[in-house]
């Protein structure tokens, strides 16, 4: 019961479709607790700003509910919400001076002059700009405008403060300072902060809780440590920090094979499970040549101020290492990985699964299966129905007991592994066309997400480099497809 009271903001089954018909957010659920510093993190276009705007009241969800303290505020206009926003470009009113900007909200509430003066003084102290009351907005630097924008929001004592990429316009040094100041301010005020950023370092530094988003969906919610050390999927692993990603499989109890060697690990999955292993560059141990599990050669070593970035080429992959030692190009080295430095992500069971309908059957040739984007012809009956046999001249295959199978209209799920797919720029070469939506570098190949016109995603590994937006066709040999009857 107590836990329930802690929740301040709740998004329930929120969907957002824009006027042009594009659905950015399909079904999003999110809980934000009282007093938390929550960061919505993701690449541009992932829907993080839209969520913030819905909480602020500037955008309405197409469907779903938005609760504040248990009350439905989905249709409440922004001026009636106890929420204030620090806008990306600050949006300070250029025709008003600092004092009038800060008191804009107070004046509407009818706060008396004396209280206004006191509050302005207090917030200006808080943002370190005492005595700036009479200054015109145009005379302020970017950092100062940023602080005034924060002051203008917090002077209203909101329950929630929304910050929309608020530090992105500042230079690097100023940004670091503001990150620390914002965190301190959050402690002092004790209210909920919801911060939106595409900068993973910023998110990890500032927040109590990070919500990693991609493509309108929440990928992972957790503390900065969780997100960094235990990424739930490859997107999170790749987006947060640097990582070496290896394709491999489990070979025994807490034993995993990748990169040409078997390693002990701490995650336990059934043997033969296909996995991706994520290793952070700072966790790679470089040993004497001949020692360690993998051998390689240094191909680059760059000084980054506090550490060196070393690239090591092995016969299977290229590995990035961060440490304090400097190497010469051409140095032979060994590589070792401690069990707790290997984070294992099982293959996402839901990728490359497509639902189709059995359309036609011809004995000897098999089924034609129709999917939304494509059709597969010549699928042998026994690949869909266990033990089925095809008899000439009959309009249905027969099952083990010799009875005819009623196949018309049955739904099947077809799936394939990313490594079995192939990309081509020849539209005729594959069974479906689409555009490269995103990709992750995986040491010796790339993993691409190809999005078709009907918004289906195809995950394919390919050694060639394609760019975002490239038009490609996906091909998979028919024998590599797995079929399963839909329930």
């Amino acid at each position, binding site marked *: 019961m107590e836990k329930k009271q802690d929740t301040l903001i709740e998004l329930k089954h929120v969907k957002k479709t824009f006027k042009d018909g594009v659905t950015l957010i399909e079904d999003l659920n999110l809980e934000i607790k009282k007093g938390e510093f929550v960061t919505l993190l993701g690449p541009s276009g992932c829907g993080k700003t839209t969520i913030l705007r819905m909480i*602020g009241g500037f955008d309405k969800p197409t469907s779903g509910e938005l609760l504040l303290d248990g009350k439905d505020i989905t249709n409440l206009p922004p001026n009636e919400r106890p929420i204030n*926003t620090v806008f990306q470009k600050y*949006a300070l009113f*250029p*025709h008003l001076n600092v004092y009038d900007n800060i008191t804009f909200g107070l004046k*509407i509430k009818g706060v008396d002059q004396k209280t206004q003066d006191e509050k302005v003084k207090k917030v200006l102290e808080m943002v370190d700009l005492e005595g700036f009351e009479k200054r015109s907005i145009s005379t302020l630097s970017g950092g100062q405008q940023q602080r005034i924008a924060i002051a203008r929001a917090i002077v209203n004592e909101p329950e929630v403060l929304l910050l929309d990429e608020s530090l992105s316009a500042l230079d690097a040094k100023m940004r670091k300072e503001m990150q620390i100041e914002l965190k301190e301010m959050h402690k002092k005020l004790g209210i909920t902060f919801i911060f939106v950023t595409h900068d993973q370092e910023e998110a990890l530094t500032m927040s109590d809780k990070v919500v990693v988003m991609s493509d309108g969906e929440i990928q992972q919610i957790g503390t900065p440590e969780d997100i960094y050390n235990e990424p739930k999927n490859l997107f999170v692993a790749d987006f947060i920090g640097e990582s070496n990603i290896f394709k491999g499989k489990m070979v025994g109890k807490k034993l995993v094979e990748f990169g040409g060697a078997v390693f002990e690990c701490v995650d336990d999955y059934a043997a033969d499970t296909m996995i991706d292993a994520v290793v952070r560059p700072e966790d790679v141990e470089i040993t004497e040549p001949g020692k360690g599990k993998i051998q390689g050669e240094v191909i680059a070593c760059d000084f980054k101020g506090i550490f060196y970035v070393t690239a090591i080429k092995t016969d299977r992959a290229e590995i990035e290492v961060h440490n304090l030692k400097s190497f010469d190009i051409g140095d032979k080295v060994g590589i070792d990985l401690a069990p707790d430095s290997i984070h294992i992500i099982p293959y996402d069971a839901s990728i490359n699964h497509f639902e189709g309908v059995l359309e036609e059957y011809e004995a000897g040739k098999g089924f034609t299966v129709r999917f939304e984007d494509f059709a597969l012809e010549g699928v042998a009956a026994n690949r869909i129905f266990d033990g089925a046999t095809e008899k000439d001249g009959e309009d249905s295959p027969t099952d083990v007991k010799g009875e005819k199978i009623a196949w018309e209209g049955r739904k099947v799920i077809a799936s394939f592994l990313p490594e079995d797919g192939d990309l081509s720029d020849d539209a005729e070469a594959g069974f479906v066309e689409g555009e490269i939506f995103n990709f992750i570098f995986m040491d010796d190949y790339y993993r691409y997400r190809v999005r078709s016109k009907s918004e289906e995603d195809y995950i394919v590994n390919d050694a060639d480099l394609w760019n975002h937006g490239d038009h490609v066709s996906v091909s998979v040999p028919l024998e590599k497809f797995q079929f399963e009857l839909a329930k």
Partner: protein
Amino acid sequence: MKYRFSRKQLAIPYAIFLFLFVILPLLVVIYYAFTNSEGKLSFTNYVGFFRSGEMLGTLLYSTVIAVLTTVICLLIAYPTAFILAKAKMRSSEALLLLFVLPMWINFTLRITALKEILTLFEGNLAKYQFFNTILCMVYDFLPFMILPLYNTLTKLDDSYIEAAEDLGAKKSHVFLKVILPLSVPGIVSGVTMVFLPSMTNYVVLDMIYNSTYIMGSLIGSYFSAYDWNNGSVISIILLIIICVITAISNRYTEKDTDERGNNLK
């Protein structure tokens, strides 16, 4: 000696043009304004202007017509420009074009056409002379008010409106405290572009009103009677009024654009 071309020389034709068609006539007007019919220095024409009730009445009347035209234009143009700029309609550019389209047709033609239409409805134009004048002026000058307002309002960042709502302002409050003050530069340039020409316009009056009760037509009537001195005096008085108004409005817009420009980034 080698001939060297400098970019300044490109200005020569314009300088000649300016001198012949702007500065010289202005000097001539000033000369006539400060001399009497015998060509001697004199201020009697000014004294005459400010003593004549008829003259001052005409000045007042011109001002009333100009002010009324400007106010009506502003009242029509502001909501129009606001809707076009902020309603996020796909066709807003096309609609704007429709409002501006009449400007492509010759001014006199438009007034003649409007006169015919009015005659069709009213029969005798003399019955509603004042109304007709204002109607024609508003019709003529409306695009000049809509365009600068539209420009200012499209540039007005929506985040200002959202920020005001975020701070608790109702729609009416957002308009009065944020949108209106931020659109002042557009209002000022719109008003300038409508008020000044309607102050000196006399084609409309000539065609609709058939009278000399307005400054522009007064100047015309003096000049056509070869009374260069009196015509020049009235021209100079109008010129001074216009200069003062322009100076005031320029200061307003300059100050404001300066402040806003700094805030863009």
